[in-house]
């Protein structure tokens, strides 16, 4: 039965209206918008779902890891409510202001501490910074095989088979364990937690590990371990210039649209 680890990130809801999004250019940070909920990054929920599907078929144990701060416990417990077995939080000021590299290093050290793992799942990218580096980065720090952008993961004849999304379709890849797999939205909708799951999750102890707990080298963590330097963060300016075509009714508006497209030589 496979031991599985899933890494998840708590972020501001990426589906929030575009208008609510603002940045502080001087601080190079996003200004948290009032009323925008915290969620588990959607791709990470799909990573949890991928692990749960393996567990449904073969059993095993799922440990969820999350590095961050200001955790909203009802939110970050969601993977437990969906069916994961354990949740461990990584929280320490030493982890802050890092880049993908220092985050991947910290998660890799935590996974080493967990010790036994056959499969590690991450979302293909976090839906805030969209970098898509931490998953493969963890594999690099652990020195294990990785397959990215999976839409299906299954174990058949004791082999791990991954369907990896590529431009014109997908590839079926067999990978030896331990392996890290990043999961894409094509996997399909993650399951909703059931009431029983939510109640079980609420009762689970959630330990918090610090940099010291995972035996991390402080020079590789947070800002000290970062190699990417953020120079500037800004919201691109858009000038709206849409010409709304109206008519007596929608059919008439459609006719006028067609005529307009001809007039400006688009057709």
């Amino acid at each position, binding site marked *: 039965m496979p031991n599985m680890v899933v890494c998840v990130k708590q972020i501001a809801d*990426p589906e929030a209206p*575009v208008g609510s*999004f603002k940045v502080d250019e001087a601080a190079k940070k*996003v200004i948290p918008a009032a009323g925008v909920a915290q969620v588990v990054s959607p791709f990470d929920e799909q990573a949890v779902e991928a692990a749960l599907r393996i567990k449904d078929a073969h059993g095993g144990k799922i440990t969820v890891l999350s590095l961050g701060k200001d955790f909203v416990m009802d939110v970050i417990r969601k993977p437990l409510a969906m069916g994961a077995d354990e949740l461990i939080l990584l929280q320490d000021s030493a982890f802050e202001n890092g880049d993908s590299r220092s985050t991947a290093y910290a998660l890799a050290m935590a996974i080493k501490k967990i010790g036994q793992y056959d499969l590690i799942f991450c979302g*293909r*990218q976090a*839906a*805030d910074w*969209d970098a*898509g*580096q*931490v*998953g*493969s*980065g963890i594999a*690099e720090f652990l020195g294990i*095989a*990785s397959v*990215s*952008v999976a839409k299906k993961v299954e174990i058949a004849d004791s082999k791990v088979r991954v369907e990896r*999304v*590529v*431009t*014109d*379709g*997908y*590839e*079926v*890849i*067999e990978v*030896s364990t331990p392996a890290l797999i990043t999961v894409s*939205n*094509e996997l*399909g909708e993650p399951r909703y937690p059931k009431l029983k799951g939510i109640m079980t999750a609420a009762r689970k102890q959630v330990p918090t590990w610090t940099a010291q707990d995972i035996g991390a080298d402080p020079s590789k963590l947070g800002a000290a371990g970062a*190699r*990417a*330097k*953020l120079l*500037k*963060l*800004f*919201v*691109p300016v858009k000038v*709206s210039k*849409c*010409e*709304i075509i109206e008519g007596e009714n*929608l*059919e*008439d*508006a*459609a*006719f006028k*649209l*067609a*005529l307009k*497209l001809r007039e*400006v030589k*688009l*057709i």
Partner: protein
Amino acid sequence: MAENKGVMVLGEFSEGKLAAITKELLGGARKAADALGEELSIVLAGSGIGNLANEAIAFGADKVYVVDDPLLADYQTDSYLPVMEKIVKQAKPNILLMGQTAIGRDLAPRLAFRLDTAVAMDSLELNIDSATKALLATRPVYGGNARAVYTWGETRPQIATVRAKAMEPRERDDSRKGEIVKIDSGLTPSMIRTNVVKKVREEVAGVKLEDAEVVVCGGRGLGSAEAFKELEALAKLLSGAVGASRPPCDSGWISSSAQIGLTGKIVSPNLYFAIALSGSSQHMAGCSGAKNIVAINKDPEANIFKEARFGVVGDYKKVLPALAQKLKELLSG
């Protein structure tokens, strides 16, 4: 870091031709190399590379590193990663560019971490700082809601992946001269922990989405797989291709290979019909290069109307048949 020189591109190719993204990268990298007064090289790793090196030179490369090995026939992390590590350690480039493709996405972070440097993923724009000569990479963050400009500290190479169609390829010039350097892969089968069992193509029939001059794209508001048939009819009429935002793909109404957006394909047609889709930043990331967007949506507040040139506010079920009929008349008359 002072000893790192030159701009290097990782080439991609299929069926004996350089990929469009590689020609774009060579175009953009040529500008960067000229701004720095440095050499432009390209790595071509694969099996049976043949005449691709000359094509790469014709599109702007000064030097071509060729790694030809049957173990490189399929892209696999475990085969490409040590090969790229070896070449970068030997050639010591200042800048290394890859496409934001299935290969670049997978390879760039591991390679950057192995070389103790950073990578800027999915860059839209690359500039050379005139004072420091450092690379500045602009990339979308927060689903395209914001842009971030990254630079590197002391670490080299400065690695970036670049989005499709962000850069212009140069005109092919077969009179250009360049150097071809053969490199031994150093690979043995035991180094590769994955095995590509099968490749499945899911290409949508007709014009290729990335190449289409007209794209008819549907969103969540279409509500069903059947609705895409109407979009296909319109696309066929205009010799275009059908695309979709993410929700229809996730719901299985259309193949995920039709997805346009941050996690799908990048298109830049002349005419883009956005039908029953809201125009989220995640979606716009895939079609911001479209020259003319026509939006049909029943919600007048939908973000797509901020992006569109022309719009009709209303139910697509009423608008689309009338629009198709009139367009047909105009095209036949």
